[in-house]
Protein backbone atom coordinates (compact mmCIF):
# COMPACT_ATOMS: atom_id res chain seq x y z
CA UNK A 1 0.00 0.00 0.00
CA UNK A 2 1.91 3.07 -1.22
CA UNK A 3 1.21 6.58 -0.10
CA UNK A 4 -1.18 8.50 -2.33
CA UNK A 5 0.07 11.39 -4.41
CA UNK A 6 -0.88 14.58 -2.68
CA UNK A 7 -2.58 17.16 -4.86
CA UNK A 8 -4.65 20.21 -4.06
CA UNK A 9 -7.86 18.16 -4.39
CA UNK A 10 -6.53 15.43 -2.08
CA UNK A 11 -5.57 18.07 0.50
CA UNK A 12 -9.09 19.50 0.35
CA UNK A 13 -10.54 16.06 1.08
CA UNK A 14 -8.06 15.45 3.91
CA UNK A 15 -8.81 18.85 5.40
CA UNK A 16 -12.54 18.13 5.15
CA UNK A 17 -12.11 14.83 6.99
CA UNK A 18 -9.79 16.41 9.61
CA UNK A 19 -12.38 19.04 10.46
CA UNK A 20 -14.20 16.40 12.54
CA UNK A 21 -11.80 13.43 12.75
CA UNK A 22 -14.22 10.97 14.34
CA UNK A 23 -17.28 12.04 12.37
CA UNK A 24 -18.96 9.95 9.68
CA UNK A 25 -18.77 11.87 6.41
CA UNK A 26 -20.88 10.97 3.40
CA UNK A 27 -19.82 11.67 -0.14
CA UNK A 28 -22.37 14.44 -0.65
CA UNK A 29 -21.29 16.15 2.56
CA UNK A 30 -17.64 16.05 1.51
CA UNK A 31 -18.61 17.43 -1.90
CA UNK A 32 -20.28 20.39 -0.21
CA UNK A 33 -17.35 20.93 2.20
CA UNK A 34 -14.60 20.68 -0.38
CA UNK A 35 -16.38 22.06 -3.41
CA UNK A 36 -15.17 19.09 -5.45
CA UNK A 37 -17.48 17.44 -8.00
CA UNK A 38 -18.47 13.80 -7.50
CA UNK A 39 -16.26 12.68 -10.40
CA UNK A 40 -13.19 14.05 -8.60
CA UNK A 41 -14.12 13.19 -5.01
CA UNK A 42 -14.91 9.47 -5.28
CA UNK A 43 -11.68 8.43 -7.04
CA UNK A 44 -9.74 10.30 -4.34
CA UNK A 45 -11.66 8.54 -1.57
CA UNK A 46 -11.02 5.20 -3.26
CA UNK A 47 -7.27 5.89 -3.41
CA UNK A 48 -7.15 7.07 0.20
CA UNK A 49 -8.99 3.91 1.27
CA UNK A 50 -6.54 1.74 -0.69
CA UNK A 51 -3.69 3.55 1.06
CA UNK A 52 -5.25 2.82 4.45
CA UNK A 53 -5.75 6.48 5.32
CA UNK A 54 -9.53 6.24 5.16
CA UNK A 55 -12.02 3.51 5.95
CA UNK A 56 -15.63 3.23 4.90
CA UNK A 57 -18.70 1.69 6.53
CA UNK A 58 -22.29 1.23 5.52
CA UNK A 59 -24.94 3.12 7.39
CA UNK A 60 -26.94 0.90 9.77
CA UNK A 61 -30.55 1.82 9.07
CA UNK A 62 -33.69 0.07 7.92
CA UNK A 63 -34.09 1.22 4.32
CA UNK A 64 -37.82 0.45 4.32
CA UNK A 65 -38.40 2.55 7.42
CA UNK A 66 -36.19 5.43 6.23
CA UNK A 67 -37.51 5.31 2.69
CA UNK A 68 -33.99 5.41 1.19
CA UNK A 69 -31.07 2.99 0.72
CA UNK A 70 -28.15 2.69 3.15
CA UNK A 71 -25.46 5.30 2.56
CA UNK A 72 -21.75 4.71 2.78
CA UNK A 73 -19.72 6.95 5.05
CA UNK A 74 -16.02 7.61 5.37
CA UNK A 75 -13.73 8.40 8.31
CA UNK A 76 -9.99 8.77 8.76
CA UNK A 77 -8.07 5.87 10.23
CA UNK A 78 -5.54 6.55 13.03
CA UNK A 79 -2.65 6.36 10.55
CA UNK A 80 -4.61 8.41 8.08
CA UNK A 81 -5.26 11.14 10.62
CA UNK A 82 -1.53 11.41 11.42
CA UNK A 83 -0.58 11.45 7.73
CA UNK A 84 -3.33 13.93 6.89
CA UNK A 85 -2.20 16.34 9.64
CA UNK A 86 1.38 16.01 8.42
CA UNK A 87 0.45 16.75 4.81
CA UNK A 88 -1.83 19.65 5.67
CA UNK A 89 0.85 21.15 7.95
CA UNK A 90 3.45 20.74 5.24
CA UNK A 91 1.22 22.49 2.75
CA UNK A 92 0.50 25.34 5.20
CA UNK A 93 4.24 25.73 5.73
CA UNK A 94 4.91 25.86 2.00
CA UNK A 95 2.09 28.29 1.42
CA UNK A 96 3.23 30.61 4.22
CA UNK A 97 6.77 30.57 2.81
CA UNK A 98 5.45 31.37 -0.66
CA UNK A 99 3.20 34.16 0.69
CA UNK A 100 6.08 35.76 2.67
CA UNK A 101 5.73 38.54 5.27
CA UNK A 102 2.63 39.92 3.53
CA UNK A 103 0.85 36.59 3.88
CA UNK A 104 1.93 36.24 7.54
CA UNK A 105 0.70 39.75 8.34
CA UNK A 106 -2.64 38.99 6.73
CA UNK A 107 -2.87 35.73 8.64
CA UNK A 108 -2.11 37.53 11.89
Amino acid at each position, binding site marked *: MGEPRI*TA*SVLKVLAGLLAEPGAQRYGLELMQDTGL*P*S*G*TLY*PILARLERAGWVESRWEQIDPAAEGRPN*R*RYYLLTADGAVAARREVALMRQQMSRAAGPLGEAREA
Partner: protein
Amino acid sequence: MGVVDRVARAAVLAAARRWPDDLAPLMREEWLAELASITGRRRAARKLAFAGSLAVSPAVDEPSWRDRSVIVGRGAAVAAGVTLLAAVATNLARGSEALAPAMLLLGVAALTLIGRRVRASIVPVAAALFAFLFAGNPVPMMPFMGAADIAPAVITWAVGIALALRWAASTGRRWVAVAGSAVALHLATAAGSAHAAAVLGVPAWTAPAWFPLALLPGDTVSFGPHFGDGAAAFGGLQASGPAFHASEILLANAAVSAGPMLLCTAFLLAPALRRPAAAVHSTRKLTHAPTGAVASIATKHTGAPRAADKLAARTRGAATLTAGARGAAAPEARASKAATLAARMSGAVTLIARMSGAATLAARTSRAATLIARTSRAATLTARTSRAATLAARTSRAATLAARMSGAVAAATARLGVGGRRVGAGLAAALGALAVAPALPVAGRDADAVLPKLLDNSAAFGFGFVEHPVGLGAVALLAAILAMRAVEARLPHGKDPHSEAPT
Protein backbone atom coordinates in the same frame (compact mmCIF):
# COMPACT_ATOMS: atom_id res chain seq x y z
CA MET B 1 -39.53 7.65 -11.21
CA GLY B 2 -39.23 10.79 -13.29
CA VAL B 3 -37.14 11.39 -16.36
CA VAL B 4 -34.40 13.13 -14.39
CA ASP B 5 -34.13 10.21 -11.97
CA ARG B 6 -33.96 7.75 -14.85
CA VAL B 7 -31.25 9.73 -16.63
CA ALA B 8 -29.25 10.19 -13.42
CA ARG B 9 -29.59 6.52 -12.55
CA ALA B 10 -28.45 5.47 -16.05
CA ALA B 11 -25.43 7.80 -15.84
CA VAL B 12 -24.44 6.43 -12.42
CA LEU B 13 -24.77 2.83 -13.60
CA ALA B 14 -22.67 3.59 -16.68
CA ALA B 15 -20.02 5.27 -14.52
CA ALA B 16 -19.89 2.33 -12.10
CA ARG B 17 -19.30 -0.11 -14.96
CA ARG B 18 -16.00 1.66 -15.73
CA TRP B 19 -14.66 1.12 -12.21
CA PRO B 20 -12.56 -1.93 -11.26
CA ASP B 21 -14.54 -5.11 -10.67
CA ASP B 22 -13.90 -5.16 -6.91
CA LEU B 23 -15.20 -1.61 -6.47
CA ALA B 24 -17.91 -1.33 -9.14
CA PRO B 25 -20.82 -2.90 -7.12
CA LEU B 26 -19.93 -0.88 -4.00
CA MET B 27 -19.74 2.38 -5.88
CA ARG B 28 -22.99 1.68 -7.72
CA GLU B 29 -24.88 1.09 -4.46
CA GLU B 30 -23.25 4.10 -2.80
CA TRP B 31 -24.05 6.47 -5.67
CA LEU B 32 -27.63 5.24 -5.98
CA ALA B 33 -28.05 5.83 -2.24
CA GLU B 34 -26.61 9.34 -2.54
CA LEU B 35 -28.91 10.09 -5.47
CA ALA B 36 -31.88 8.99 -3.39
CA SER B 37 -30.79 11.28 -0.54
CA ILE B 38 -30.65 14.39 -2.76
CA THR B 39 -33.84 16.26 -1.91
CA GLY B 40 -34.97 19.83 -1.48
CA ARG B 41 -34.50 22.78 -3.80
CA ARG B 42 -32.94 22.28 -7.24
CA ARG B 43 -32.78 18.54 -6.63
CA ALA B 44 -33.13 17.73 -10.33
CA ALA B 45 -30.12 19.86 -11.23
CA ARG B 46 -28.12 18.51 -8.29
CA LYS B 47 -28.90 14.91 -9.22
CA LEU B 48 -27.90 15.50 -12.83
CA ALA B 49 -24.69 17.27 -11.75
CA PHE B 50 -23.82 14.44 -9.36
CA ALA B 51 -24.44 11.71 -11.94
CA GLY B 52 -23.05 13.66 -14.89
CA SER B 53 -19.75 14.35 -13.15
CA LEU B 54 -19.32 10.65 -12.39
CA ALA B 55 -20.24 9.71 -15.95
CA VAL B 56 -17.66 11.95 -17.62
CA SER B 57 -14.86 11.66 -15.08
CA PRO B 58 -12.15 9.00 -15.20
CA ALA B 59 -12.56 6.05 -12.84
CA VAL B 60 -10.08 5.38 -10.05
CA ASP B 61 -7.46 3.65 -12.22
CA GLU B 62 -8.08 5.51 -15.44
CA PRO B 63 -5.79 8.33 -16.62
CA SER B 64 -7.03 11.82 -15.91
CA TRP B 65 -8.32 14.13 -18.63
CA ARG B 66 -5.05 16.05 -18.46
CA ASP B 67 -3.06 12.88 -19.04
CA ARG B 68 -5.43 11.83 -21.75
CA SER B 69 -5.05 15.15 -23.51
CA VAL B 70 -1.26 14.81 -23.31
CA ILE B 71 -1.44 11.29 -24.76
CA VAL B 72 -3.83 12.35 -27.53
CA GLY B 73 -1.71 15.41 -28.32
CA ARG B 74 1.43 13.34 -28.63
CA GLY B 75 -0.34 10.76 -30.77
CA ALA B 76 -1.69 13.49 -33.02
CA ALA B 77 1.76 15.09 -33.39
CA VAL B 78 3.35 11.75 -34.32
CA ALA B 79 0.51 10.98 -36.74
CA ALA B 80 0.83 14.38 -38.41
CA GLY B 81 4.61 14.03 -38.64
CA VAL B 82 4.40 10.57 -40.16
CA THR B 83 1.78 11.70 -42.66
CA LEU B 84 3.87 14.68 -43.74
CA LEU B 85 6.92 12.45 -44.08
CA ALA B 86 4.94 9.93 -46.15
CA ALA B 87 3.66 12.75 -48.36
CA VAL B 88 7.15 14.19 -48.88
CA ALA B 89 8.49 10.74 -49.77
CA THR B 90 5.59 10.14 -52.17
CA ASN B 91 6.08 13.48 -53.90
CA LEU B 92 9.82 12.86 -54.24
CA ALA B 93 9.13 9.39 -55.65
CA ARG B 94 6.56 10.72 -58.11
CA GLY B 95 8.99 13.39 -59.22
CA SER B 96 11.60 10.75 -60.03
CA GLU B 97 9.28 9.34 -62.77
CA ALA B 98 10.74 5.98 -63.89
CA LEU B 99 12.40 5.43 -60.51
CA ALA B 100 9.13 6.03 -58.68
CA PRO B 101 8.52 2.36 -57.68
CA ALA B 102 12.07 1.99 -56.34
CA MET B 103 11.82 5.28 -54.46
CA LEU B 104 8.50 4.20 -52.98
CA LEU B 105 10.06 0.94 -51.80
CA LEU B 106 12.81 2.97 -50.13
CA GLY B 107 10.09 5.04 -48.50
CA VAL B 108 8.35 1.89 -47.29
CA ALA B 109 11.61 0.67 -45.74
CA ALA B 110 12.22 4.04 -44.07
CA LEU B 111 8.69 4.28 -42.63
CA THR B 112 8.95 0.67 -41.41
CA LEU B 113 12.12 1.54 -39.52
CA ILE B 114 10.47 4.61 -38.02
CA GLY B 115 7.44 2.52 -37.09
CA ARG B 116 9.66 0.19 -35.09
CA ARG B 117 10.78 3.04 -32.86
CA VAL B 118 7.72 5.28 -32.73
CA ARG B 119 4.10 4.23 -32.26
CA ALA B 120 0.86 5.86 -33.31
CA SER B 121 -2.62 4.42 -33.58
CA ILE B 122 -4.63 4.15 -36.75
CA VAL B 123 -7.31 6.76 -36.04
CA PRO B 124 -4.99 9.79 -35.64
CA VAL B 125 -2.95 8.70 -38.67
CA ALA B 126 -6.15 8.37 -40.71
CA ALA B 127 -7.34 11.79 -39.49
CA ALA B 128 -3.99 13.35 -40.36
CA LEU B 129 -4.04 11.68 -43.77
CA PHE B 130 -7.51 13.00 -44.50
CA ALA B 131 -6.58 16.49 -43.34
CA PHE B 132 -3.41 16.48 -45.41
CA LEU B 133 -5.09 15.23 -48.58
CA PHE B 134 -7.95 17.65 -48.11
CA ALA B 135 -5.88 20.71 -47.20
CA GLY B 136 -3.05 19.93 -49.56
CA ASN B 137 -4.94 21.03 -52.63
CA PRO B 138 -5.79 24.73 -52.24
CA VAL B 139 -6.40 25.10 -55.97
CA PRO B 140 -8.83 22.49 -57.29
CA MET B 141 -6.27 21.19 -59.75
CA MET B 142 -6.81 17.50 -59.04
CA PRO B 143 -10.21 16.81 -60.55
CA PHE B 144 -11.30 14.09 -58.13
CA MET B 145 -9.77 15.03 -54.80
CA GLY B 146 -12.77 16.37 -52.95
CA ALA B 147 -14.05 15.13 -49.60
CA ALA B 148 -16.34 12.72 -51.49
CA ASP B 149 -13.24 11.03 -52.93
CA ILE B 150 -10.84 11.26 -49.99
CA ALA B 151 -13.21 10.27 -47.18
CA PRO B 152 -14.22 6.84 -48.61
CA ALA B 153 -10.57 6.06 -49.36
CA VAL B 154 -9.27 6.98 -45.91
CA ILE B 155 -12.17 5.35 -44.02
CA THR B 156 -11.87 2.11 -46.01
CA TRP B 157 -8.11 2.13 -45.47
CA ALA B 158 -8.35 2.73 -41.72
CA VAL B 159 -11.02 0.06 -41.19
CA GLY B 160 -9.13 -2.42 -43.37
CA ILE B 161 -5.80 -1.89 -41.60
CA ALA B 162 -7.47 -2.14 -38.18
CA LEU B 163 -9.15 -5.42 -39.15
CA ALA B 164 -5.92 -6.81 -40.62
CA LEU B 165 -3.93 -5.96 -37.49
CA ARG B 166 -6.60 -7.36 -35.19
CA TRP B 167 -6.85 -10.55 -37.23
CA ALA B 168 -3.07 -10.93 -37.27
CA ALA B 169 -2.92 -10.40 -33.50
CA SER B 170 -5.62 -12.99 -32.84
CA THR B 171 -4.04 -15.61 -35.11
CA GLY B 172 -0.41 -14.75 -34.36
CA ARG B 173 0.42 -14.84 -38.08
CA ARG B 174 2.34 -11.90 -39.46
CA TRP B 175 1.48 -12.63 -43.07
CA VAL B 176 -2.17 -12.00 -42.24
CA ALA B 177 -1.30 -8.40 -41.37
CA VAL B 178 0.61 -7.95 -44.64
CA ALA B 179 -2.01 -9.65 -46.81
CA GLY B 180 -4.88 -7.90 -45.07
CA SER B 181 -3.20 -4.54 -45.45
CA ALA B 182 -2.59 -5.17 -49.15
CA VAL B 183 -6.29 -5.92 -49.56
CA ALA B 184 -7.16 -2.79 -47.56
CA LEU B 185 -4.95 -0.66 -49.85
CA HIS B 186 -6.65 -2.08 -52.94
CA LEU B 187 -10.12 -1.53 -51.51
CA ALA B 188 -9.27 1.98 -50.31
CA THR B 189 -7.91 2.97 -53.73
CA ALA B 190 -11.01 1.57 -55.38
CA ALA B 191 -13.29 3.38 -52.92
CA GLY B 192 -11.44 6.66 -53.43
CA SER B 193 -11.54 6.32 -57.23
CA ALA B 194 -15.13 5.09 -57.63
CA HIS B 195 -16.43 8.61 -58.19
CA ALA B 196 -13.72 9.32 -60.78
CA ALA B 197 -14.40 6.02 -62.54
CA ALA B 198 -18.12 6.77 -62.72
CA VAL B 199 -17.55 10.26 -64.17
CA LEU B 200 -14.80 9.21 -66.59
CA GLY B 201 -16.54 6.01 -67.71
CA VAL B 202 -13.74 3.69 -66.59
CA PRO B 203 -15.11 0.14 -66.22
CA ALA B 204 -15.43 -1.07 -62.63
CA TRP B 205 -13.87 -4.45 -63.42
CA THR B 206 -10.50 -2.74 -63.77
CA ALA B 207 -10.62 -1.66 -60.08
CA PRO B 208 -8.24 -4.38 -58.77
CA ALA B 209 -5.50 -2.93 -61.02
CA TRP B 210 -5.88 0.69 -59.89
CA PHE B 211 -3.69 0.50 -56.78
CA PRO B 212 -0.60 -1.11 -58.36
CA LEU B 213 -0.92 0.94 -61.55
CA ALA B 214 -1.24 4.15 -59.55
CA LEU B 215 2.21 3.52 -58.10
CA LEU B 216 3.80 3.04 -61.54
CA PRO B 217 4.80 5.77 -64.00
CA GLY B 218 2.14 6.90 -66.48
CA ASP B 219 1.50 5.22 -69.85
CA THR B 220 2.19 1.76 -68.38
CA VAL B 221 -1.34 0.60 -69.18
CA SER B 222 -4.16 2.70 -70.60
CA PHE B 223 -7.84 1.89 -70.56
CA GLY B 224 -11.21 3.55 -70.52
CA PRO B 225 -12.58 6.16 -72.92
CA HIS B 226 -10.13 8.00 -75.15
CA PHE B 227 -10.12 11.81 -75.14
CA GLY B 228 -8.79 12.59 -78.59
CA ASP B 229 -8.97 16.39 -78.37
CA GLY B 230 -6.87 16.44 -75.14
CA ALA B 231 -9.25 18.90 -73.46
CA ALA B 232 -9.85 18.57 -69.73
CA ALA B 233 -11.58 20.62 -67.07
CA PHE B 234 -10.12 20.89 -63.55
CA GLY B 235 -12.67 22.46 -61.31
CA GLY B 236 -13.22 25.84 -62.89
CA LEU B 237 -10.04 25.68 -65.00
CA GLN B 238 -9.74 24.40 -68.54
CA ALA B 239 -6.68 22.68 -69.93
CA SER B 240 -5.72 21.29 -73.28
CA GLY B 241 -2.88 19.00 -74.21
CA PRO B 242 -2.16 15.69 -75.89
CA ALA B 243 -4.84 13.03 -76.29
CA PHE B 244 -5.26 10.79 -73.24
CA HIS B 245 -7.20 7.90 -71.84
CA ALA B 246 -9.58 8.24 -68.90
CA SER B 247 -7.44 5.78 -66.94
CA GLU B 248 -4.53 8.25 -66.90
CA ILE B 249 -6.56 10.88 -65.05
CA LEU B 250 -8.03 8.25 -62.73
CA LEU B 251 -4.67 6.72 -61.86
CA ALA B 252 -3.00 10.13 -61.34
CA ASN B 253 -5.72 10.99 -58.82
CA ALA B 254 -5.52 7.58 -57.15
CA ALA B 255 -1.72 7.88 -56.87
CA VAL B 256 -2.02 11.00 -54.73
CA SER B 257 -3.66 9.05 -51.89
CA ALA B 258 -2.27 5.58 -52.70
CA GLY B 259 1.36 6.62 -52.09
CA PRO B 260 0.90 8.17 -48.63
CA MET B 261 -1.49 5.37 -47.66
CA LEU B 262 1.11 2.76 -48.65
CA LEU B 263 3.84 4.44 -46.60
CA CYS B 264 1.57 5.01 -43.61
CA THR B 265 0.59 1.34 -43.82
CA ALA B 266 4.27 0.37 -43.57
CA PHE B 267 4.57 2.58 -40.48
CA LEU B 268 1.49 1.06 -38.81
CA LEU B 269 2.43 -2.53 -39.69
CA ALA B 270 6.00 -2.28 -38.39
CA PRO B 271 5.20 -3.16 -34.75
CA ALA B 272 3.03 -6.12 -35.81
CA LEU B 273 5.87 -7.49 -37.94
CA ARG B 274 8.14 -7.75 -34.89
CA ARG B 275 6.30 -10.62 -33.26
CA PRO B 276 8.09 -13.26 -31.14
CA ALA B 277 7.04 -15.72 -33.84
CA ALA B 278 9.82 -14.22 -35.97
CA ALA B 279 12.41 -15.21 -33.39
CA VAL B 280 11.02 -18.74 -33.13
CA HIS B 281 11.08 -19.10 -36.90
CA SER B 282 14.68 -17.97 -37.20
CA THR B 283 15.66 -20.24 -34.32
CA ARG B 284 14.13 -23.13 -36.20
CA LYS B 285 16.11 -22.18 -39.28
CA LEU B 286 19.28 -22.00 -37.25
CA THR B 287 18.68 -25.40 -35.68
CA HIS B 288 17.90 -26.97 -39.06
CA ALA B 289 21.01 -25.61 -40.75
CA PRO B 290 23.61 -27.21 -38.46
CA THR B 291 21.71 -30.51 -38.61
CA GLY B 292 21.95 -30.48 -42.40
CA ALA B 293 25.62 -29.61 -42.33
CA VAL B 294 26.36 -32.39 -39.86
CA ALA B 295 24.44 -34.87 -42.00
CA SER B 296 26.39 -33.80 -45.06
CA ILE B 297 29.72 -34.15 -43.26
CA ALA B 298 28.70 -37.55 -41.91
CA THR B 299 27.81 -38.74 -45.41
CA LYS B 300 31.20 -37.65 -46.69
CA HIS B 301 32.93 -39.46 -43.86
CA THR B 302 30.96 -42.66 -44.41
CA GLY B 303 32.06 -42.57 -48.06
CA ALA B 304 35.70 -43.11 -47.05
CA PRO B 305 35.19 -46.48 -45.29
CA ARG B 306 33.19 -47.66 -48.29
CA ALA B 307 36.17 -47.00 -50.59
CA ALA B 308 38.46 -48.75 -48.12
CA ASP B 309 36.11 -51.75 -48.07
CA LYS B 310 36.23 -51.90 -51.87
CA LEU B 311 40.04 -51.84 -51.83
CA ALA B 312 40.22 -54.55 -49.20
CA ALA B 313 37.82 -56.74 -51.16
CA ARG B 314 39.95 -56.46 -54.26
CA THR B 315 43.12 -57.25 -52.25
CA ARG B 316 41.41 -60.29 -50.77
CA GLY B 317 40.50 -61.38 -54.33
CA ALA B 318 44.15 -61.13 -55.39
CA ALA B 319 45.28 -63.23 -52.42
CA THR B 320 42.70 -65.89 -53.29
CA LEU B 321 44.03 -65.95 -56.85
CA THR B 322 47.58 -66.34 -55.53
CA ALA B 323 46.51 -69.29 -53.36
CA GLY B 324 44.78 -70.85 -56.39
CA ALA B 325 48.00 -70.54 -58.44
CA ARG B 326 49.95 -72.63 -55.94
CA GLY B 327 47.95 -75.73 -56.83
CA ALA B 328 48.40 -75.31 -60.61
CA ALA B 329 51.77 -77.11 -61.11
CA ALA B 330 51.22 -80.75 -62.40
CA PRO B 331 48.51 -81.27 -64.99
CA GLU B 332 48.78 -79.64 -68.33
CA ALA B 333 45.18 -78.72 -68.18
CA ARG B 334 46.00 -76.77 -65.16
CA ALA B 335 48.78 -74.90 -66.97
CA SER B 336 46.37 -72.83 -68.93
CA LYS B 337 44.41 -72.13 -65.78
CA ALA B 338 47.64 -71.20 -64.06
CA ALA B 339 48.46 -68.85 -66.91
CA THR B 340 45.02 -67.29 -66.62
CA LEU B 341 45.44 -67.04 -62.88
CA ALA B 342 48.89 -65.56 -63.34
CA ALA B 343 47.46 -63.04 -65.75
CA ARG B 344 44.74 -62.21 -63.28
CA MET B 345 47.31 -61.96 -60.53
CA SER B 346 49.36 -59.72 -62.68
CA GLY B 347 46.24 -57.61 -63.29
CA ALA B 348 45.49 -57.55 -59.56
CA VAL B 349 49.04 -56.54 -58.77
CA THR B 350 48.88 -53.82 -61.43
CA LEU B 351 45.58 -52.68 -59.92
CA ILE B 352 47.09 -52.61 -56.46
CA ALA B 353 50.08 -50.72 -57.80
CA ARG B 354 47.80 -48.24 -59.55
CA MET B 355 45.68 -47.86 -56.46
CA SER B 356 48.77 -47.37 -54.41
CA GLY B 357 49.93 -44.72 -56.87
CA ALA B 358 46.51 -43.15 -56.84
CA ALA B 359 46.49 -43.20 -53.07
CA THR B 360 49.92 -41.57 -53.00
CA LEU B 361 48.75 -38.99 -55.51
CA ALA B 362 45.59 -38.42 -53.50
CA ALA B 363 47.63 -38.05 -50.35
CA ARG B 364 49.93 -35.57 -52.07
CA THR B 365 46.96 -33.71 -53.52
CA SER B 366 45.38 -33.66 -50.10
CA ARG B 367 48.56 -32.30 -48.56
CA ALA B 368 48.82 -29.70 -51.33
CA ALA B 369 45.19 -28.78 -50.79
CA THR B 370 45.77 -28.50 -47.05
CA LEU B 371 48.81 -26.35 -47.73
CA ILE B 372 46.83 -24.15 -50.13
CA ALA B 373 44.00 -23.88 -47.64
CA ARG B 374 46.40 -22.95 -44.87
CA THR B 375 48.08 -20.40 -47.13
CA SER B 376 44.69 -19.03 -48.08
CA ARG B 377 43.63 -18.85 -44.44
CA ALA B 378 46.91 -17.17 -43.58
CA ALA B 379 46.37 -14.67 -46.41
CA THR B 380 42.81 -14.06 -45.28
CA LEU B 381 44.00 -13.66 -41.74
CA THR B 382 46.67 -11.22 -42.84
CA ALA B 383 44.12 -9.25 -44.85
CA ARG B 384 41.70 -9.25 -41.92
CA THR B 385 44.44 -8.19 -39.57
CA SER B 386 45.38 -5.40 -41.93
CA ARG B 387 41.74 -4.30 -42.21
CA ALA B 388 41.30 -4.60 -38.48
CA ALA B 389 44.41 -2.50 -37.94
CA THR B 390 43.11 0.15 -40.38
CA LEU B 391 39.69 0.01 -38.72
CA ALA B 392 41.25 0.23 -35.28
CA ALA B 393 43.27 3.24 -36.35
CA ARG B 394 40.16 4.88 -37.79
CA THR B 395 38.14 3.96 -34.73
CA SER B 396 40.80 5.40 -32.53
CA ARG B 397 40.79 8.64 -34.51
CA ALA B 398 36.98 8.70 -34.50
CA ALA B 399 36.92 7.97 -30.78
CA THR B 400 39.35 10.81 -30.15
CA LEU B 401 37.22 13.12 -32.28
CA ALA B 402 34.01 11.89 -30.64
CA ALA B 403 35.54 12.34 -27.20
CA ARG B 404 36.52 15.90 -28.05
CA MET B 405 33.11 16.61 -29.61
CA SER B 406 31.18 14.95 -26.81
CA GLY B 407 33.20 16.93 -24.33
CA ALA B 408 32.30 20.14 -26.11
CA VAL B 409 28.66 19.07 -26.54
CA ALA B 410 28.45 17.93 -22.92
CA ALA B 411 29.87 21.23 -21.75
CA ALA B 412 27.43 23.13 -23.95
CA THR B 413 24.42 21.01 -22.96
CA ALA B 414 25.39 21.17 -19.29
CA ARG B 415 25.29 24.91 -19.58
CA LEU B 416 21.93 24.72 -21.36
CA GLY B 417 20.27 22.21 -19.01
CA VAL B 418 17.43 19.85 -19.89
CA GLY B 419 14.94 22.59 -20.61
CA GLY B 420 17.45 24.48 -22.71
CA ARG B 421 18.20 21.40 -24.79
CA ARG B 422 14.54 20.84 -25.46
CA VAL B 423 13.95 24.44 -26.41
CA GLY B 424 17.09 24.47 -28.55
CA ALA B 425 16.05 21.34 -30.41
CA GLY B 426 12.54 22.68 -30.90
CA LEU B 427 13.78 26.01 -32.15
CA ALA B 428 16.22 24.39 -34.55
CA ALA B 429 13.53 22.07 -35.89
CA ALA B 430 11.06 24.92 -36.33
CA LEU B 431 13.60 27.04 -38.18
CA GLY B 432 14.51 24.04 -40.34
CA ALA B 433 10.85 23.45 -41.16
CA LEU B 434 10.36 27.12 -42.02
CA ALA B 435 13.32 26.92 -44.39
CA VAL B 436 12.49 23.56 -46.01
CA ALA B 437 8.69 23.56 -46.17
CA PRO B 438 8.34 26.28 -48.85
CA ALA B 439 10.73 24.30 -51.06
CA LEU B 440 8.58 21.17 -50.95
CA PRO B 441 6.97 20.24 -54.27
CA VAL B 442 3.41 21.48 -54.51
CA ALA B 443 0.64 21.08 -57.03
CA GLY B 444 1.03 23.57 -59.86
CA ARG B 445 -1.49 26.31 -60.41
CA ASP B 446 -1.35 26.23 -64.21
CA ALA B 447 -3.83 23.74 -65.60
CA ASP B 448 -1.95 23.41 -68.91
CA ALA B 449 1.22 22.50 -66.99
CA VAL B 450 -0.54 20.08 -64.66
CA LEU B 451 -2.28 18.04 -67.41
CA PRO B 452 0.95 16.51 -68.85
CA LYS B 453 2.12 15.71 -65.32
CA LEU B 454 -1.18 13.99 -64.63
CA LEU B 455 -0.80 11.96 -67.81
CA ASP B 456 2.71 10.74 -66.92
CA ASN B 457 1.64 10.29 -63.29
CA SER B 458 4.33 12.57 -61.87
CA ALA B 459 2.20 15.46 -60.57
CA ALA B 460 3.24 16.61 -57.11
CA PHE B 461 0.46 17.03 -54.63
CA GLY B 462 -0.12 18.58 -51.28
CA PHE B 463 1.83 21.09 -49.21
CA GLY B 464 -0.17 23.85 -50.80
CA PHE B 465 -1.03 24.84 -47.24
CA VAL B 466 2.58 25.86 -46.54
CA GLU B 467 2.04 28.79 -48.88
CA HIS B 468 -0.28 30.22 -46.23
CA PRO B 469 1.39 31.66 -43.10
CA VAL B 470 -0.91 29.64 -40.82
CA GLY B 471 -0.08 26.38 -42.62
CA LEU B 472 3.64 27.15 -42.56
CA GLY B 473 3.46 28.02 -38.88
CA ALA B 474 1.62 24.78 -38.15
CA VAL B 475 4.34 22.75 -39.87
CA ALA B 476 7.07 24.60 -37.93
CA LEU B 477 5.19 24.04 -34.65
CA LEU B 478 4.78 20.36 -35.43
CA ALA B 479 8.50 20.01 -36.19
CA ALA B 480 9.34 21.77 -32.91
CA ILE B 481 7.02 19.53 -30.87
CA LEU B 482 8.42 16.34 -32.40
CA ALA B 483 12.02 17.47 -31.93
CA MET B 484 11.40 18.40 -28.29
CA ARG B 485 9.69 15.08 -27.71
CA ALA B 486 12.65 13.26 -29.30
CA VAL B 487 15.10 15.09 -27.04
CA GLU B 488 12.95 14.28 -24.00
CA ALA B 489 12.82 10.61 -24.96
CA ARG B 490 16.62 10.44 -25.25
CA LEU B 491 17.29 11.88 -21.82
CA PRO B 492 18.71 9.22 -19.47
CA HIS B 493 16.30 10.06 -16.66
CA GLY B 494 13.82 11.87 -18.80
CA LYS B 495 10.74 10.33 -17.31
CA ASP B 496 7.82 12.45 -18.20
CA PRO B 497 6.10 13.89 -15.16
CA HIS B 498 2.80 13.63 -16.98
CA SER B 499 3.11 9.88 -17.28
CA GLU B 500 2.60 9.39 -13.55
CA ALA B 501 -0.78 8.22 -12.42
CA PRO B 502 -2.84 11.08 -11.18
CA THR B 503 -4.33 11.09 -7.75
